[in-house]
């Protein structure tokens, strides 16, 4: 059973703010999601690996350099730029 505290903890880790009045709805939604995901346990006893259902492996790339993007393009989505850097507020 998911609790308010769980939701607050996960929100904190994800840097999300959840207003008090949404807490009940969010907790129920999360509980439902986890219950839904839990149905997979009924099947996994049959020895299927669910994290790789396509059974794909080794999609590799050769170690050959391709020119990088222009810096202007790289920085074009940034909120704030200075001296060719992305600029963000200082955090600890």
């Amino acid at each position: 059973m998911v609790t308010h505290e769980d939701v607050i903890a996960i929100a904190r880790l994800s840097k999300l703010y959840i207003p008090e009045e949404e807490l009940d709805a969010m907790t129920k939604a999360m509980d439902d999601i986890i219950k839904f995901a839990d149905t997979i346990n009924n099947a996994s006893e049959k020895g299927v690996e669910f994290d790789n259902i396509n059974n794909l492996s080794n999609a590799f790339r050769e170690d050959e350099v391709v020119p990088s993007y222009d810096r202007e393009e790289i920085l074009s989505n940034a909120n704030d730029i200075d001296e060719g850097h992305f600029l963000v507020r200082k955090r600890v």
Partner: protein
Amino acid sequence: MKYEMVAGFETHIELATNTKIFCSCTTQFGGDPNTHCCPICIGLPGTLPKLNKQVIKYAIMAGLATNCEIANISKMDRKNYCYPDLPKAYQISQYDKPLCEHGYVQLSSGKKIRLTRIHIEEDAGKLIHKRGDTYVDYNRGGVPLIEIVSEPDIRSVEEAKEYVEKLQQIMRFIGISDCKMQEGSMRCDVNISVRPEGSDKLGTRTEIKNMNSITFIGRAMEYEFQRQVDLIESGGQVEQQTLRYDDATNTTSSMRGKEDANDYRYFRDPDLVTISVTDEEIDELRKQIPELLFQKAERYVQQFGMNEKDAANISKYRRIAEFFEEASEGVKTPKNVSNFIIGQIFRRLETEDDKEKFDISITAQQLRELVKLIDDGKVKNNLAKSTLEKMLDTGKSVTEFITESDMAGMDEGMLAELCKKAVEANPKAVSDYKAGKVKALKSMVGFVMKESRGKADASAAEAKILELIG
């Protein structure tokens, strides 16, 4: 009460690939900020990472060189944390199925420092804090790393230093990283705790982050050991936390309380498929690993009769070891080859970096020619030394400096002539010798050597002079 230090290391090493781990941007050090970037390594939505083949190869080689088991099946996971050095808010790493496990590094005492695992992951970007803001450069973001995690087997600062040096030597030797601590291509986190001597329980540990010098690792560990002992002695408790070492004040200070592994919410990266390596592929890589340096040093002692110090000095640098072996091929006295390298050649390679690069003007074959002349008695050691200096200055071969007539040696008559000259030219030396100063004889022999331009045989000259003044 006496306390014992217990330490383990997490060592990050940047791999010497051309491109980043999940995209084809260059890994070159430096460059203007954000010029080695593309949508993949700045984490734009909708991009798809693709794993660099060479990263797998290098990481397996690192594992084989440190006696690890290599996993046939391995995968990539997301390690979630929110900090501007990671544009995606997660780092792609390996969690429960690392590529290499259960290895060890052996110290000179014979003690084995066990390795828990070696896994591959991406490096983070570089942050510069100034004017109250954070400047972000993602050039380093996505550069491939291996993280080598040791068991808490280290018991002293000396063991710690040797462990780090050994790792550095091994990784350089197999050519997977330059391991330059000052440039950040090798960085260590040190986990350290203390316990009463004789106890087998582990104390609460602290982690000193991002050490980039062997000297500082030593100092930080000494400081932190003492700090923990003092804390316990005064009735306090060590708190599990992450520390930063300040080399200016030689102290550690708290960065943050230690996160639990849960906080990272690891889960498989759905964008990256399983890594599968066959035993045949692993064996193929095993063959590519050059004989590791300590095995090589041992062989030099046995095969060439070198002393341990010389063997260690030559085998330590991959290029020098190769040069030595090539120059010694078919030579009767490999000792002469090693002496020339450690003497004349090392004098021209002052720093570790110089020795690593080993940029000298002559080839191994040219040195071999010179040593063979000594073997055949055609050139005396002193002449060979001065000739080698000239060869190193110019890059030219021995035949440029020593003519056939020089090699012919001296006949009896010529030697007798020169000895006579030496006696006549040095009356003071003769009287000094007769008065009991044995050294005076050497000065006359020196005269003969100089006059003959090193061709004369010193012991024959000595005998001849004694005969003359006897």
